[in-house]
């Protein structure tokens, strides 16, 4: 499984390490140089690229055309959307999964913007917290199907 992960924050790195531990092929792109230096201690250099994933040249350098799964996991919704858009429309990546940071932006994470499935982390966490408070509360105060669009 050839996976490209955008964003070397906690979420991106956590996912990358699990995929690598299970023998998957992974490349991770991080744009912030100081963050990139920190990543080099946790993940082997051959899986890391420092660059702006919204730049088509960077995507081409990591072989975007042969990527099967793209995970847009940066902390910036606009960056996640741009990369999703480029990957889907310009390079025909088979599956694009994106992280929604601000629940207000969830409406944008749709196939029109190149996103096949979105994970709305604030919504997901809030639901789980509510369910822990009271098993019925989650279903009571949250609307259906807002967490993941699959």
């Amino acid at each position, binding site marked *: 499984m050839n996976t490209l992960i955008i964003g070397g924050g906690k979420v991106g790195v956590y996912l990358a390490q699990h995929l690598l531990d299970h023998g998957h092929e992974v490349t991770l792109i991080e744009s912030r140089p100081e963050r990139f230096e920190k990543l080099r201690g946790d993940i082997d250099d051959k899986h890391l690229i420092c660059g702006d994933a919204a730049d088509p*040249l960077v995507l081409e350098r990591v072989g975007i055309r042969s990527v099967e799964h793209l995970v847009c996991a940066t902390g*910036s919704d*606009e960056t996640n*959307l*741009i990369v999703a*858009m480029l990957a889907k*429309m*310009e390079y025909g990546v088979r599956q694009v999964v994106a992280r929604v940071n601000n629940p*207000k932006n969830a409406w*944008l994470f749709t196939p029109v913007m190149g996103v096949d499935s979105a994970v709305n982390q604030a919504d997901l966490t809030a639901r789980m917290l509510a369910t822990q408070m009271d098993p019925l509360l989650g279903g009571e105060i949250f609307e259906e199907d807002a967490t993941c669009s699959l």
Partner: protein
Amino acid sequence: MKIIVVGCGRMGSGLARALDRTNHDVAVIDRDESAFESLGSNFRGLTIKGIGFDRNALIKAGIERSDGLAACTSSDDANTVTARIAREMFRVPTVVARLYDPDKADVYRRLGIQTIGSISWAVKRALEIFSYSKLDVVESLGSGGGVEILHVAATAALVGHKLSELNIPGEIKVVALERSGKTAIGAEELTIESGDQLYVAAHASSVGQLRALMGIERVR
């Protein structure tokens, strides 16, 4: 027309004011309310606090009935997302995004987003001023090393000379002269005046010589 401007920096506020002055219906969105001060007290358009891809802000700005949207915040990513939303989700007929990074522009154009790169525009314009300010290629005839039709603005070196003095048989030939809004063909005995616009046919290899005659290139 009804136009939405996202980002009220120098470009956004300048565009919004220009549209307002020419009686267009303008709505400006910016995340920082103090940015609207640059619109001046005479601005009649709508100002909305919010980010450019906030659904509520866009709807408040009237995106469902807009003829155009210009995304001109300082972030290339935000501008591209806003432009794409406007086009694909709200079907705004004309959408333009400002991009600082010229390398991205080609790809985004293929995604249906028209871009304006203020930096690449400025670089291109500066190059033009250095190399072509008084001399623009209007049309190239023939493929590779053919004949150029050039638009030439009268330079100090040309003023006072007859048009015919520019002609070099087989190399350079004045085609037309434009003066005070009128264009004449073949008036070769006329003396060139300041403000005249000349149309000149020149063999590609003789363009350097024409520049020298115009005094815009040093003869080496």
